[in-house]
């Protein structure tokens, strides 16, 4: 179950994963030897029951509504707010941000590790998580 959940939060969830989780949870709570085993899947079952839409957002839209799944986060620079000061690109630990001074900068999403350092340094609040 953990493996499937991790798959989902990494944005690799597939159609049918929720059903598979529920089926597994049912199997485990029905057949486990001890009470601990029988209740182990409960957190998963109750989160699916209450927040199914969030699961679906992860799987189908590859989006994390709560913004806590790092792999599903995306950090972007708002072209309209960016003044091209280059402060962010100097702060970025993996040199994922590039651009010409006085023109809007861009973030290379393949390099970005979602650390958020650029968000904190930007004096114009032009960088946001989406």
């Amino acid at each position, binding site marked *: 179950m953990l493996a*499937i959940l991790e798959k989902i939060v990494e944005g690799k969830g597939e159609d049918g994963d929720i059903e598979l989780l529920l089926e*597994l949870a049912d*199997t485990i709570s*029905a057949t486990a030897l001890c009470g601990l085993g029988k209740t182990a899947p409960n957190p998963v079952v109750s989160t699916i029951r209450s927040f199914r839409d969030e699961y679906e957002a992860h799987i189908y839209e590859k989006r994390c509504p709560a913004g806590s799944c790092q792999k599903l986060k995306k950090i972007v620079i708002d072209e309209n707010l960016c003044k091209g000061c280059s402060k962010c690109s100097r702060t970025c630990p993996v040199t994922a941000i590039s651009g010409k001074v006085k023109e809007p900068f861009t973030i290379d999403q393949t390099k970005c590790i979602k650390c958020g350092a650029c968000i904190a340094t930007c004096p114009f609040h032009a960088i946001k998580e989406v």
Partner: protein
Amino acid sequence: MGNKEYMIIDGIPVEINGEKNLLELIRKVGIKLPTFCYHSELSVYGACRMCMVETERGSLEAACSTPPRAGMEIKTNTERLRKYRKNILELLLANHCRDCTTCNNNGKCKLQDLAMRFNIQNVRFPNTAAEPKVDDSSPSITRDTNKCILCGDCVRMCNEIQNVGAIDFAHRGSKMTISTSFDAPIAQSPCVGCGQCAVVCPTGAIVVKDNTAEVWKALDDKNTKVTVQIAPAVRVGLGKELGLSDGENAMGKIVAALRRMGFDEIYDTSTGADLTVLEESNELLKRLEEGKQDMPLFTSCCPAWVRYCEKNYPELLPHVSTCRSPMQMFAAIIKEESKNSSRKAVHVAVMPCTAKKFEATRDEFKVNGIPNVDYVITTQELIQMIKESGIVFSELEPESIDMPFGTMTGAGVIFGVTGGVTEAVLRRIASDKSNTGLMSIAYKGVRGMEGVKETTIMYGDREVRIAIVSGLKNASDLIERIKEGEHYDFVEVMACPGGCINGGGQPFVPYEARVMRGKGLYSADKLCNIKRSEENPLMMSLYNGILKGRVHELLHVEYASKNQEG
């Protein structure tokens, strides 16, 4: 005792007859409920969850750990149960090696079998099977912990029945494995090589070490003379796998098959057992007459027992008979005889036993560094070789063994079953040599599959107390009793429950079939012209020939090296 109690299984009323759990009752009515972790002789573990049944209230119970109650209604095959069983199998397969075709246990694997039964065609979970982690340090068994499904059968066998305790669970949760202490190679553990763990292992996690390639090589080599001896228990152990019935004596067919495969001379270990009977009886009588303190005398036929004694009760070694096992006695003689041949002598032993593989490598049984028994193959490996060679076993015409060592007695044949050694020795030392006397020995309590048997016979005016144990736990319990002061004169120990017929190298069969193997040996004994070892005409010629002046050198052994690995 009042009314009979009934319960309902799948809509059919079934009488409860003292079964200890639902599983037994369900199987009795002809439903093959799947299990991994249940063996009737081991304690109930309830880990595999395959035997779940649904009660009338819709709750689920594990059939192996629920006693039958009068009036209970259960269903064994509902949509829910089938779904759960499939899920469990899928989960097991998700982190199990799926290279079935190259697995040593291919075709004998319970996981494979159940996956087929439940029609698993796709595993929906990511494959998390780790690379094989093979431990082949032991000459007897090979372990691959990554094929383990953690049913715990081997652990319970090793601890409960054999009292060896070489392996146990280590770590917790998803990191759990079966391990020796400190994950040392099995050869450095208290393992005695009995192979009972491999018998109960449902997968390929513990298998018998495979030596067939070496034997084929020797057979293909024109410059070798390959002699072979076949242990008593083999003849009743392999038939089932090759199209005969449980416990059917297939000796003649085995000889025919071996001859076709290219073995030059084929002998019966029962002949070696006759030598053992003579030597061991002499030793017993000598000790009885001298009134030495080294009583009781323990038998030494079983290499796993000898190993167990060395590792756990080294102080008892003087009590263990100095006789070599029948295999080693016979091998010494055959090797001696083969010296006259111009070709290189290779001696193979077909045994029901994995510990024999270790025994063959012991320094005590090497002459100038060359072992008397070059290769030991188990019954399972023989079956494999017969299948590989394409011989249709069931259609073979039985053939007889070779000369000059081709005469054996019934006393030698029954060595393969618990109590057999004792019975053979009793036949030798009994004063009443009539037929009635012979038959009465059989009813002295030496026969039967019980783990502990006791009997008393008169030798002259002396009472001789005899104990027969099989299963090393029974042996150690008896030793504790002896240490507390109980007196026995002669103790037969076989490491495997029921004796060699249930050795670690035999194909796994349910309890009823094991009883049939014992019966098979006793009826083979009935068919033998000669019942007593001392009447074997070959013995006379051996003692006047090869053995003259060399009895001690060729037939006896002092186990010295306690710390040898294995």
